[in-house]
């Protein structure tokens, strides 16, 4: 669990304190810390003078605004039909095997989370994954091992 510290204040200074700043502020926190803690959401509520339930309501609507503990690197694998046809199953098995976690879980060192996602628009280069904001495409089991190794040594 991270401490949100001054980040919310910095973000509200950047984006403003109006209701419409809620999204960019939440995105800013997730960009830095991968997910939203209760403390962070309460801090946002305080800064914008809205209720914490409203902040949670908004955050929980969006898949990419996670309110559960996530690792530093969130791997999202496309679960839709093209990626499935092009071997997404094997990719999942490889990652699960490598990180010793199942889909939906986070490694105990909080480095990686493995999640499924709806279509990310890379059907022509399936199978595809996202690691945080970066897409990786035309994956094979070998290729994905190399990519994740790269993150392990970052």
């Amino acid at each position, binding site marked *: 669990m991270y401490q949100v510290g001054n980040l919310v204040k910095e973000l509200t200074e950047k984006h403003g304190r109006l209701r419409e700043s809620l999204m960019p502020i939440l995105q800013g926190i997730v960009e830095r810390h991968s997910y939203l803690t*209760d403390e962070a*959401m*309460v801090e946002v*509520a*305080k800064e914008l003078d*809205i*209720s*914490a*339930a*409203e*902040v*949670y*309501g908004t955050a*929980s*609507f969006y898949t990419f605004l996670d*309110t559960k503990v996530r690792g530093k690197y969130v791997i999202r694998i496309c679960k839709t039909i093209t990626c499935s046809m092009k071997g997404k199953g094997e990719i999942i098995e490889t990652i699960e095997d490598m990180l010793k976690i199942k889909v939906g879980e986070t490694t105990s060192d909080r480095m990686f989370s493995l999640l499924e996602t709806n279509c990310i628009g890379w059907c022509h280069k399936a199978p595809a994954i996202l690691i945080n904001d970066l897409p990786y495409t035309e994956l094979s089991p070998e290729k994905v091992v190399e990519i994740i190794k790269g993150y392990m040594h970052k």
Partner: protein
Amino acid sequence: MINLTINDQKTSVPAGSTVLDAAKKLNINIPTLCNHPDLCIAGNCRVCLVEQKGARTLIAACAMPVAEGMDIHTNTLKVRNARKHVVELLLSEHRSDCTKCYKNQKCELQSLANEFAFGDTIFLDLVEDHPYEIDRSSPSFMKDDSKCIRCQRCVRTCSELQYISAIAVANKGAHQKISSFHDRPMSHVVCTNCGQCVNRCPTGALVEKTYIDQVWDAIYDPEKHVVVQTAPAVRVALGEDLGYDPGERVTGKMVTALRQLGFNSVLDTDFSADLTIMEEGTELLTRLKKALVDGDKKISFPMFTSCSPGWIKFIEHKYPEFLPNLSTCKSPQQMFGALAKTYYAQKRKIDPSKIVSVSVMPCTAKKYEADRPEMRDSGYKDIDYVLTTRELAVMIKQAGINFRNLEPSHYDSIMGDSTGAAVIFGATGGVMEAALRTAYEIVTGREVPFNNLNITPVRGMEGVKEVTIKIEGCTDDWKFLEGAELKTAIAHGLTNANKIMRLVRQGKSPYHFVEIMACPGGCIGGGGQPIPTSMEIRKNRMKAIYSEDEHMILRKSHENPDVIAIYKDFLGKPNSHKAHELLHTHYVEREQY
């Protein structure tokens, strides 16, 4: 004006009206669920679909503004099929254990299902697939998501009327739910327990936590002496749940019914409302004296009333820095509770451990208040069980009492006498009016300078009312107030309370004394009152409260004989040491979000 036809009947309505408004004008019934007259338009349940000639799709009557020449049909095959499917889809996600449900026969979804007379439905029952748990954490109400149809009346109530937003819409699609902050139990979030959401929930998803069985158990226990008190607003609303029109006073019949239910003593919260005025009025005058004569810098204004437990929890959460401004007086319910197991027990020579103290309130927050750890000054739990107006109606029906045919009767003595000043506690502005009737007379020796004691400027449904009273002709003890202008304000509904609190926080409040009630209209519009409620219904109840006041012989709290007696025999004088021990309390700062 806009001209349109509905079912080939011509009508014209002002621009900005909805198709639903126009239909109402023509007495054409269109079913609704998410729509509520107190709340903004949502248009999310789709039960009110109608057909507009020339339009591609069906339209939601509650959300569609009228347009010139519109040709609307509310009873076509397409409309009926669509509505039927909408209701069926809602039912597929609704736990339909109707016969066992607390809202059985009072559920708007059930009535619609009944209207459409479903036999077999083509949709799956999806309720069993969800791991629903009922949230029973609040002492005031329960939240059962398996009965929720996500109409969001509760969410709009909590944000628009109460400025709390303790609940919001979370998740999406099939997972959408009405949730507190991160799904925490309702007892652990900023909820004020006001029950306005309960009052507006069309199904059994939000209901009061009922203590009916515990009260029956106490009544049937020969060892117990069960006393009951009834709040001022109950007597002008109870009738609605027993077949009367809104605004009919049923005080005497209610007292008879309570006696027939088996309560050992039927007493009146109005007695302790009068007592509240003595304590709170004295507190206000003492604060003014300390500030103006002694120059005590610690005394800050305005002083806030403390009768409404929803408001208390609101200020504890949202404006804790102003807790010292709250009157230390307990609410009338709790003053009554502390005295029932001390003064009343002594007078009646009853062992207080054998007394079960029940109150009937228009309020769900009172259940929470009775559970507060501060409320045990008698040495026991001062109030054992709180019933809402609705629960009392249920008990009357359970007992098979034919309410209409009851002979009216009077409250029992000792803590049963009351004045008109106490009755009006039930309406917004009532506490202020009662306080002014007494305080003005203490200071000047004369009655308040209003026709027939009716301080009309503090009355009515305006959200925030401001009234300034010039004090003239003070007696010797109060000369320091000569010519002073007492500035007061009154707010009802927490959104309005928040407007005043913003001024106070900004240092812009000119007020000395502020009355705040958590619910719209005051207690007459309380979360424990009969369902439905609307502005019109609240106005009728309010009219009944003032008519009850006008019919009382005594209309000033300090003239209540039971109040005079208790000061003489037991408490000494207002704000005495003993009064402080039993009738005053303190407050707790709580989490802000």
